[in-house]
């Protein structure tokens, strides 16, 4: 009886741990989940563009910039310099490859800001840029990073 009680406790504890873990990964309001979300984003982007290594690299550059955006939306003006370069890089790669596909930037964004809290943070990022004028963002492969 005593042994079974201990067993039941252990099972309960295990269930509690699983639930806690599940809650931890489901909740997306904390800074930790925002930052730890990058690994998931990286995998999504790499999977999505696996057949096109050059575009995959450019997409990762853009996803990294968007990761910075959701991590620190109040620093939007500085981060946006990187985002703009990354968008130019993606468009530059598409232009070089003769692709007429539109919506690629939006697809990468959707992979990078997935999650309710990340979306909210991205809305805040956008708000910090409101009223500004941007000169760049057109296709420019020279703005692709080397790493």
């Amino acid at each position, binding site marked *: 009886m005593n042994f079974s009680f201990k067993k039941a406790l252990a099972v309960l504890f295990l269930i509690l741990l699983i639930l806690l873990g599940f809650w931890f990964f489901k909740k997306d309001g904390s800074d930790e989940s925002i930052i730890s979300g990058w690994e998931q984003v990286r995998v999504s982007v790499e999977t999505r563009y696996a057949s096109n290594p050059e575009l995959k690299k450019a997409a990762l550059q853009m996803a990294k910039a968007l990761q910075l955006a959701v991590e620190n939306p109040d620093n939007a003006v500085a981060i946006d310099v990187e*985002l703009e370069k990354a968008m130019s890089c993606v468009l530059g790669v598409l232009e070089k490859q003769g692709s007429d596909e539109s919506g690629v*930037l939006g697809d990468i964004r959707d992979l990078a800001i*997935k999650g*309710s809290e990340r979306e909210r943070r991205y*809305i805040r*990022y*956008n708000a910090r840029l409101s009223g500004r004028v*941007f000169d760049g963002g057109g296709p420019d492969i020279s703005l692709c990073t080397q790493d």
Partner: protein
Amino acid sequence: MYSRLNPVKLTIASSVLALLLPLFSRADCNSPKVLYFANGMFNDRVGANESKDELQKKLQRKYPSDKFATVKLAFNTDEAALIQLHQVFRQKVTDINVSFWKSFANLLQVNPKDVSTILSKYIAVEKLLDVDLSLQIKSYQASLKNGWSIITVAHSQGNFYTNSAFDNLNVGNMTSMISVATPASRVFQDGPYFTFKSDGIIGLIPTALSPNLTKEPAGLFDHEFIKHYLGDKTTHDQILLAVHETYNNATEASEPSLDPAARYFDNDVVPILNYYKEVVTQRSLLPGQCLLAWQLFDVYARHGATCTQRNFAAFKEGISDCLKDLNDKNQERRETNCPFYRGMDFGSPYQAYFPAESHDFFTSFPDCKMSFNDFHEQEGLNEATAALVLLQKLETKTTKRETK
């Protein structure tokens, strides 16, 4: 900026100038154009960049001869509205794989009543919400200072911001607006507009300009810039044609003016006009600067000429002719393009009062009113050479501006 040079450089400078003149005697009074895209509430930073790029790409393909000096994004968003919409959206759509930014088309279906209320509250109000437009106005002003005219394609709420910015600038002949899916009740200076009868957002706003296009097949939303407006072949062609026509509609100024925006001078003179604006704020001027001002008024007064003849080359010809005359040991007076021989040193009332700006100038700088001999005595050769060098610097500015 202004420096004195040794006269021994004179001959070299003159020769180089003579060789360069044909290269810069372009004729272009229609100022370069800059294209702005002003996005609406449903475009985030990435989506707005995508819209701008798509518009530019499609224009380049359809009208390759229309060369914009630059293409810019005037970015606007509405945080309060988006936060509320996001809240409604995520209450109904818990699948995080469904993108908030790409699913606006479904918003009205998700929760039509709440969404309509939010949209009516935020998009239908003909006023600026929480967006500070000062940076955009500064950007527009910088373009105008370059002598560029502005064409803005505004989508959705971007129309409110553009109307407001252009009202603020108040330089109608240099700013043109083309409206797409506009919630506003007007387009700046009655510019063209394109709104689908099936646009689910504009349909919510009773004060918006009446929809004027029919989309086949009609959708429930039909509001997005790329997907719906540029995606519809007929509308796509109409929007691009409107930009093309606006691009080619620039006209020459009818009234003489030193304002670069008036296009009375050739576009390559804009750096000189901007330099003049700076110069007249000084307390006193060097004789070489006076010479440049004389030359400016001389070119200004060429009424019979077309704007293309009031160009940079005319400035250079005048100053280099002065250099030749100053270098002439016989001091033989000839009829040349040097402003001294075009009446500037005669001191006639006509010269003093026409153009009106010259009267103001000589009132502020009486020492500038001098004869050829006076000028010659005041290190005229050095001063004229310095004026020429300054012109060459301004010319470099012009070529850089155009290749930017």
